[in-house]
C-alpha cells in the first residue's frame, strides 16, 4: 500500500465518522431528507467564499458554506410554518433553488474557478493526496485530512458535551423545553454541525454521496440496536467499513471511489435490512408466519375445549368445520401433537392435560382483554414454535 492509498483511506474513514454522528440524530429525528437539502445548498456559499478568498482550502469557504446550509434549514422551516405547502415540498422547493444559484455562479465564472460541476456532484477522493498542507516548505499531509480532522474533532467534542441534551430534545422536545434545554438551540446546533460536516465531506465524496454517508450507516445501525450509544458506534463502524472496503472495491474495479463507497453502504444496508435478527425483513416475515400458525393452533384448541361430543372432534370434521385448507389443518395438528397438547385416538382428537391447562389460561387472558399475555405463557408451554 502506498502512502497516497493510506491517506485516501484515512480521509474516507474520517469523513465517514464525521457524517455518521450527525446522521444518526437526523435519522432519529426523521429528517434524513434535510441532509440532502443541506448538501446541495451549501454550493452557493462555497462559490461565494471562493470568490472572496480565491483559495479552495480557506476556512472562510467552510464558514460560508455552512452558513448557506443553515439558511436552507431556516427557509425550509419558514415555508413549512406558513402551512401553505407540506414539509417535504418545502425541502424540495428550497434546495434546488440554492443549488442552482451555485451552478449559475460557477458557470458564469468558469474561467477563473477550478470548481466544476462534476467534481461538485461526485467529488474526487483520488486527488486529495495531491493538495498538501505546506508550511515553510514542510509537508504536513493532505489538506483535506486536516480539514475533516478538525471538523471531526469539533463534532466529537460537541457530541460528548451535549449528548444528554441531544438525546432528550430528540426523544421528547416538549420535556426538553420544560426542563430548559432549548430544542431550537440544539436543532440549529445539529444543523450547523451537519452543514459543516457536509462541507468537509464535500471535497471527498461530492454533494450527492455525502447524503448516503450520513443516512445509510445510521439507518443500518437503527435496525440492529435498541441503544442510542450503540447506534452511534455501529453507524461509525458501518461508515468506516464501507469507506475502506469501498476504496478497495474501486481499486479492483478501477472505478470511482465515492461511487464504490456508496455501493458498499447500500449493500451493507440491504444485508442488514434482510437478515437483521429482530427487525430484519426475513425475521419479521418469519415471526408473522409463526404468529399466524400459533393463532390457528389456539383457535383449534379452543374449539376442542368447547366440544366434548366426539363428532365435533373427528379429524375430518375439523377440516371441514374450521374451514381450513388441508395443508393448514395438518400443520396445526402436527404442531399441537409435537407440543403434546393433543392425542389422536381412532381419528378422534382430545386435549391432553397440558393442552387443557394452556387453553384455560389463554381463555382467561382473552376474557380479561389481556391477549398480549398469551405470548408469555407460550414460553412455558411450547416445545416447538409454529
Amino acid at each position, binding site marked *: 500500500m502506498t502512502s497516497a492509498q493510506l491517506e485516501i483511506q484515512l480521509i474516507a474513514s474520517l469523513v465517514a465518522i464525521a457524517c455518521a454522528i450527525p446522521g444518526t440524530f437526523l435519522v432519529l429525528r426523521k429528517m434524513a431528507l434535510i441532509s440532502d437539502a443541506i448538501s446541495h445548498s451549501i454550493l452557493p456559499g462555497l462559490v461565494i467564499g471562493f470568490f472572496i478568498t480565491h483559495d479552495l482550502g480557506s476556512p472562510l469557504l467552510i464558514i460560508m458554506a455552512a452558513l448557506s446550509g443553515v439558511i436552507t434549514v431556516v427557509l425550509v422551516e419558514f415555508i413549512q410554518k406558513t402551512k401553505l405547502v407540506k414539509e417535504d415540498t418545502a425541502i424540495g422547493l428550497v434546495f434546488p433553488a440554492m443549488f442552482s444559484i451555485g451552478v449559475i455562479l460557477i458557470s458564469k465564472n468558469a474561467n477563473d474557478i477550478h470548481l466544476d460541476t462534476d467534481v461538485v456532484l461526485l467529488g474526487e477522493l483520488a486527488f486529495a493526496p495531491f493538495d498538501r498542507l505546506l508550511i515553510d516548505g514542510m509537508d504536513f499531509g493532505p489538506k483535506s485530512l486536516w480539514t475533516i480532522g478538525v471538523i471531526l474533532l469539533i463534532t466529537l467534542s460537541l457530541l460528548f458535551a451535549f449528548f*444528554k441534551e441531544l438525546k432528550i430534545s*430528540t*426523544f421528547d422536545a*416538549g420535556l426538553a423545553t*420544560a426542563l*430548559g434545554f432549548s430544542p431550537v438551540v440544539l436543532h440549529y446546533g445539529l444543523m450547523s454541525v451537519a452543514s459543516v460536516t457536509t462541507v468537509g465531506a464535500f471535497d471527498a465524496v461530492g454533494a450527492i454521496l455525502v447524503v448516503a454517508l450520513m443516512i445509510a450507516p445510521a439507518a443500518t445501525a437503527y435496525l440492529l440496536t*435498541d441503544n442510542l450509544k450503540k*447506534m452511534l458506534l455501529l453507524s461509525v463502524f458501518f461508515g468506516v467499513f464501507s469507506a475502506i472496503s469501498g476504496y478497495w472495491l474501486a481499486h479492483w474495479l478501477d472505478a470511482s471511489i465515492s461511487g464504490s463507497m456508496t455501493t458498499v453502504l447500500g449493500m451493507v444496508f440491504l444485508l442488514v435490512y434482510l437478515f437483521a435478527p429482530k427487525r430484519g425483513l426475513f425475521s419479521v416475515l418469519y415471526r408473522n408466519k409463526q404468529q399466524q400458525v400459533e393463532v390457528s393452533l389456539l383457535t383449534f384448541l379452543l374449539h376442542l375445549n368447547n366440544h366434548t361430543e366426539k363428532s365435533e372432534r373427528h379429524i375430518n370434521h375439523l377440516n371441514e368445520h374450521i374451514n381450513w385448507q388441508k395443508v393448514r389443518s395438518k400443520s396445526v395438528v402436527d404442531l399441537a401433537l409435537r407440543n403434546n397438547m393433543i392425542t389422536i385416538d381412532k381419528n378422534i382428537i382430545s386435549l391432553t392435560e397440558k393442552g387443557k391447562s394452556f387453553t384455560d389460561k389463554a381463555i382467561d387472558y382473552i376474557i380479561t382483554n389481556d391477549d398480549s399475555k398469551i405470548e408469555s405463557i407460550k414460553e412455558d408451554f411450547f416445545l416447538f414454535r409454529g
Partner: protein
Amino acid sequence: MGKQKFAVTVDDLTVAYNYKPVLWDIDLAIPEGVLMAIVGPNGAGKSTLIKAILGIIDPIAGSVSIYGKPYKKQRKLVGYVPQKGSVDWDFPTTALDVVMMGTYGSLGWIKRPGKKEKKTALESLEKVGMLSFKDRQISQLSGGQQQRVFLARALAQDADIYFMDEPFQGVDATTEIAIINILKELRKKGKTVVVVHHDLQTVPEYFDWVTFLNVKKIATGPVKEIFNDDNLTKTYGINYKVSVQK
C-alpha cells in the same frame, strides 16, 4: 380556611395558533396541595394550557407564575408528564434511560447523570412498579407500562408541582388505579398535581379540585362545590347529566 397559598397563578393568558385563539384570557389560581383535574371537550385547549404554563408554547398575552415567580426561574419545582403519543416509542432507549431524563433538569447543561441520578431513577421505577422492566426497550412495553415510565420520569424530577397530560389515556384498569394511588400519595406529601382528564365519571372519586375549560375558563374550585350539571352543560355545550356519586 386561612389565607390560601397558590402554587400556580395564571393571569390573562391568551394562546393562539396562527392568530386563531385556542385559549382566551385565562385567569386561574391553583392552590397548593390540590389534586386538580382540567376537564373540557376536545379542542378546549387543555393541553395547550399546560404547555403554555410550562413555556413550551409562547402565549400572545398574559403571564404565568409558579410560587410568585416566572416559570423560567422555577423549572426545578415543576414536573411534567406529556401525552404518551407525543414521543416516538421506537426511539432506541430503555425504560431506565427515559426515567433518567427526569433528572436532567436538575443537572443543567453539559453535566452528565451519575450514580445519584441512576439511584433516583431506579427508585422512581420501583414506585410505579416497573423496576423489573428497567432494561426493556421502550417499544417493547405495553401502553400502560409506557405511561408508568412517563410517570416515573416525572417522579424522578422530584418536583413540587406536577402537570400531567392525560396520564390515564389508553391504560387498563389496574394501571389507572396504580397511577391514581401515586397521585394521591403525592398530594398527601403536600405536592400540587394538575391533570388533564377525560373521564368525567371518575372526577369526584379521584380529584378534590377541578377546572372546567372550553377555550375560556368556565369555572374552577373544589369538586364538591362546582362539579355539577350546570357547569358541565356550560363546558360541553349540551345538556349534560352526570350522576355524581359519592
